């Protein structure tokens, strides 16, 4: 895979060209994220209720109902609208000597993980991911802030294949 760098990076044209060569996550991950997002609704509801009992004098203040509506509405919106945005933001590529990642909706983060610096690679599957046939790929490096990088929502078979490929490519450079 050629280095996406001939077109000046950082420009709109550059990003377009980059994006064409980069892989995306599996579309089903949007569903997984939505489900986890929806699971937050009861927690948010309970949280607002707890706040109300702490702050107000009476058990059910007049503002509880509208507050719950606003909070739950916002949480619902986030749960539904957030995942596709997140999905669109995620891009990655396994290049010849490194792994290139780009992610983030609010905070954009671009990362490069050299194969030689990968200590080991895990695949991680929660119950939701298993049900949907997805898996997360977790790269472990010896770094501090960027030490563990996770590529979420890959098709299970793809994750396994990538893990094997990265494990083979990963340098034996364990001396830090």
């Amino acid at each position, binding site marked *: 895979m050629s*280095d996406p*760098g001939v077109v*000046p*990076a*950082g*420009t709109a044209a*550059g990003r377009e060209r980059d994006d064409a060569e980069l892989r995306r996550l599996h579309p089903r991950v949007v569903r997984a994220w939505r489900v986890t997002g929806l699971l937050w609704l009861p927690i948010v509801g309970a949280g607002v209720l707890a706040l109300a009992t702490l702050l107000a004098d009476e058990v059910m203040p007049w503002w509880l109902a509208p507050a719950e509506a606003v909070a739950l509405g916002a949480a619902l919106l986030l749960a539904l609208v957030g995942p596709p945005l997140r999905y669109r933001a995620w891009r990655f590529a396994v290049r010849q*000597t*490194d792994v290139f990642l780009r992610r983030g909706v*609010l*905070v*954009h*983060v*671009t*990362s*490069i*993980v*050299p194969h*030689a*610096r990968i200590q080991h690679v895990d695949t991680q599957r929660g119950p939701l991911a298993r049900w949907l046939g997805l898996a997360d790929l977790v790269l472990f*490096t*010896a*770094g*501090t*802030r*960027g*030490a563990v*990088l996770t590529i979420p929502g890959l098709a299970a078979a793809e994750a396994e294949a990538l893990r094997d490929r990265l494990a083979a490519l990963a*340098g034996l*450079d364990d*001396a*830090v």
Partner: protein
Amino acid sequence: MPSEAPTAGPYDARRKLHPATVLFAALDAARAFFVPALLAAFGIGGGTGTTGLWLVVLVAVPSVLSAAGKYLTFRYRLAPDELIIDSGVIARRHRVIPLRRLQNIDVKQTAVERLVGVAELRVETASGGRETEAVLNVLAADDAEALRSELIARRHRLTGARDADVDAASPADAERYAAPGVPLVRLAPRDLVIAGATANEAGLLAAGLASLLELVGELPIQLPEPDVDPSALTTGRALMLAAAAVLALILLFVVVGWLVSIAGTLVRYWGFGLERAGDELRKEYGLLARHTGSVPLERVQAVRLEESLLRRAFGLAALKIETAGLRLGRGAGGRRGGAEAFVPITRTAAAPELVAAVLPEARGVRLAGLERVHPRARRRAAVRYSLPILLGAAGLAALVDPGWLLLLGLLPLAWLLAEAHYRSLGWARRPGLLLARAGVLTRVTWIVPLRKLQTLHVRATPFQRRHGLATLIADTAAGGADVARVIDLDRAVAARLLRELNDEARAIRAYAGSSLASRSSTASTSSEVLR
């Protein structure tokens, strides 16, 4: 290259710690048991005498018991290439540490330990965390030093690291590595006084003392109440007196904090000596607790040049090295993460030479003349510093009192700080190195060798994107909380740097890998160790 295994020695059998462990472990445990014992003693009640007695009993008995348990069950030994430790009274733990992974091997002695003739040996590996660490607390002082030399010798034998003088591993290695190396820095008491006087921490101490005084107010001591008529407080004169009193108090704290900082630095770094012996760095320092430490140069991930406000004014700086692996806070003064004091104080002009002693890439490299980040960063800094004041003034004026609008008078100060912040940001590329600088109070310049680079990131918050800026993060295996970053670069520059640094780091790794391969295939002769 690993050579013949050492012949059977005193370390093959399982050894115990020094009997004095019971005393020192008990003292350590007492700290843990103190508060619960205090609560229990008060719970039992019955007068000060009985409570005091109960307190002593409740602290002493479990402490001595646990300490005795530790002494009776702790065993260590050296296999040909491993350090093996068995510990734990209730839950037995068997810990095996490969000697080639040893990074820091330190012997530490507190004043009391020195009196008794014992010392603590502490070893760490690159992986950090509690699982790959060992503390032998306490050993006879001579045993500790002997074991340290043995560990160092074995590690060198196993990692194949070469000193120009050493052709092949031999039993004399242990002796050789105890021999003195090339001295780099020796600090006289005068230097330490300057270090303590110019540290930013002096200001923190003042703040600490101030908060201490608040505590004093809580104690049941009757401080004399000032004879002030409350209604008179609204008059201007009373206000001025109060302001003068506060100012005088602040001044007192600053002076005391300053003196304490000097005294603290003197005690902590007394007789500081740094030398390079072969491919490791050795240092020793300390008045009450004498620290000796060695760090293999291989483990150095980055160097930090730190210039506090006062030090900058006098052309002084401190140097720290970031090593792989975590350093726990306990022991040699709360060091955070993997940052270690390299040189507590030096003339900034002398810094490049010292950095070159640790990072060969830095030989003859200019550490000054960093590039500024994009001028748009000025705007972002101005917004960041002004916004809290604007919001605070507006909010307080609306909710409390319109008089709070006077806070807006702080805006020029905010702009000055923003400008200082912008000027403090800087970066530079040198062959094999990345320099990244930031910080207003303490200006920190990271010097990162690209061969130690782990991962690279470019990060942009929505606010940065608005200004077309981004932050470049160069991650290394240093265990510290902080990481080298170039803040508020122009977005295109950041993307370009990301690519270029990655390419350069890759080339360096490839070169190191190929020369490593060629070395292992030829007969081992002393050769230039590629760093």
